[in-house]
């Protein structure tokens, strides 16, 4: 499973600190994700998961510490860093007035990532969106279908880093399985995937490593087992419940 993981971290966060007003959200966060690795960042509300994503996307300038994406500092060169990342937000909302195909083409254009018709259709095929839906407007799509379009967009961008914010939220079990297959494929292509989630079950199904974010840092990190159950779900759940407490 981890054959494709390389030693060079695509995502490297060291000693990241961030506060909003008097509230310190991150207190020296260290996190690395290698190419071909799927990392599940777990944590409760307010643990700092979204802030971590914001720092990676260059939305905030770290108050302390360093952030690098493919060696690029997103705060110093946000456009350069973003060119290496595809981000799928929690509540996927594309343009209702455009078709699936038009949406992808449009967002690719916004990302300065010109792709041909074949690449777009390939991405739509990869995410399992029925062909008859490609040229329909998104206004009639279910949440799962929209999620697929957003992921197809991320795939079509063909970048080395994928940031997923609660990717399985609201998806039915079948859609989650399909989604996991896509992540498998991404791993095969040596894409570094950081998924931020509350959903322990989906995380253990696919992640190579998982980390609990509590008290502004990774409190505990676990690696998937190469044999037998990948993670001890009971232990993970117990740890999740105690997130923010001393390990």
């Amino acid at each position, binding site marked *: 499973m981890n054959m494709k993981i390389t030693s060079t971290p695509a995502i490297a966060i060291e000693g990241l600190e961030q506060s909003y007003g008097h509230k310190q959200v991150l207190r020296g966060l260290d996190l690395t994700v290698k190419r071909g690795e799927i990392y599940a960042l777990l944590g409760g509300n307010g643990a700092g998961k979204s802030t971590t994503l914001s720092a990676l996307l260059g939305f905030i300038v770290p108050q302390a510490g360093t952030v690098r994406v493919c060696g690029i500092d997103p705060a110093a060169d946000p456009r350069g860093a973003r060119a290496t990342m595809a981000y799928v937000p929690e509540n996927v909302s594309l343009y209702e007035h455009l078709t699936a195909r038009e949406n992808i083409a449009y967002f690719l254009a916004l990302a*300065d990532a010109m792709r041909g018709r074949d690449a777009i259709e390939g991405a739509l095929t990869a995410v399992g969106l029925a062909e008859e839906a490609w040229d329909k407007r998104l206004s009639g799509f279910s949440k799962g279908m929209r999620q697929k379009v957003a992921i197809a967009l991320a795939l079509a961008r063909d970048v080395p880093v994928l940031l997923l914010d609660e990717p399985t939220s609201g998806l039915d079990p079948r859609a989650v399985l399909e989604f996991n297959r896509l992540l498998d494929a991404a791993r095969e292509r040596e894409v570094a995937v950081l998924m931020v989630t509350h959903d322990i079950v989906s995380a253990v199904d696919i992640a190579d490593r998982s980390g609990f974010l509590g008290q502004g840092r990774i409190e505990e990190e676990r690696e998937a087992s190469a044999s037998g159950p990948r993670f001890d779900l009971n232990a993970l759940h117990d740890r999740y419940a105690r997130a923010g407490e001393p390990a």
Partner: protein
Amino acid sequence: MSAPSIWSAEARLLLRSGRNLVALILLLALSSAAVWAGIAEVEHQHATIKRVEAEQVRDLAAVAEANAGPEGDAGYNAYYAFMLTQGPPPPLAFAAIGQRDLQPYVLRVRALGLQAQLYDSEVYNPELALPGVFDWAFVLIYLLPLVVIALGHDLVTGERETGRLRLLLSLPGSGLWRRRVGLRYGAVLAALGLPLVVGGIVMVAPVSGIAIMLLTAALYCGFWFGLAMLIGASLRTSATAAATMIGCWIVLTLIVPTLANATIARTVPVAKGIDLTLAQREMVHHGWDIPKEETFERFFVNHPEWRGKEEFEGRFHWKWYYAMHQVGDEAVAADVAAYRASLARREELTKTLGFVLPGVGTMNVLHRLADTDIEGQLAYQDSVAAFHKSLREFYYPYLFEDRMFTQADFRRIPRYEARHSTGTLALGSLGALGLLGLLALWLGSLRIARSGIGSRSKGRGPGMAAFGKLAEITH
């Protein structure tokens, strides 16, 4: 997706939104209706002038037949022969009617007192507060901002509310907001300007005039889009952005101009024109009660060339009668000058106000260009006064030298020649409007850019931080 197709995708996004489409179609319909109404008004004024001209020919023929001949008396002719003066609509009046629906554009004058004939209706300045006639200028000044608000208030907030903003901001591309504002700006100008261009072709209006009107509209439209960017980038929700912009519209186009108009009216009181008429008539009526010598003495002050020719037999003579009217005009000359000075002062204050209020500035530019403002109306009055003076100068030798007035003389009565339109480019007002428009656009862009820098360095909430990244997509 190539550069042209990203524009076409943006156009699809714009036009597939029912609200945007309705707003643009409505603007196109209103602009078309306004141009049509303007053309109809201009055609009506032309038709009126033509009708009066035909009546005038018949009227003069009757006077000539009755009073002119071997035994003709110049006094009778001067009394009964009303001469036509007309101010035909200038070529651009169809787009900015201004004062033309309020003030007379046809006046029939004779050699009696001028002031009593000039002010059959009042000259006043309603352009600050009153919406006035429904013309293209009205649609531009009062209705276009509402369309801009409909299209522009949620440019940013709408993306946030639908959850797309973080995704958009996570992309490395650039120029999103510039394209979106530019596209909406172009669509609004096209919907507004197309009927004007068609109207200009139909009315054979000067191309330069139409071009300046379009430029004025572009600057005014820029002001409102700049404001939309400024407000949209500063507020969190579409509802508050829309409410704030509507508030700006009410304040900038209705409340402040109304208050300013009231202030100007209070600061610069203007006597009514009808008061001049009454004052002149009072003088004439008084002339019947005083010795004729006294009237002649007053008359000779300004017309000494007729001294020694005032003698006549009997109780009445036309030369005394016309001298009395002339004295009546001259007696109110100071009041007339004060009245005109007050109007000019009000006009000046209105122009100054237009330097800071884009709606007033736009109106000033359009009405001056179309020659339908107070200045144009006063120019028509001046031309009537000059013509009236020529009438008096024509008749006085007949009256004071007791010359017969023949048919040949009748044909020599001066005829009024309509003045040429004196519409000009109000460069100062246009420049100020340009500055306001560019300033608003610059501030709108700056607000987006600044919000990005601030949120990134100060570590505000993630939402604000994401919002702040608009800067990098914008620039």
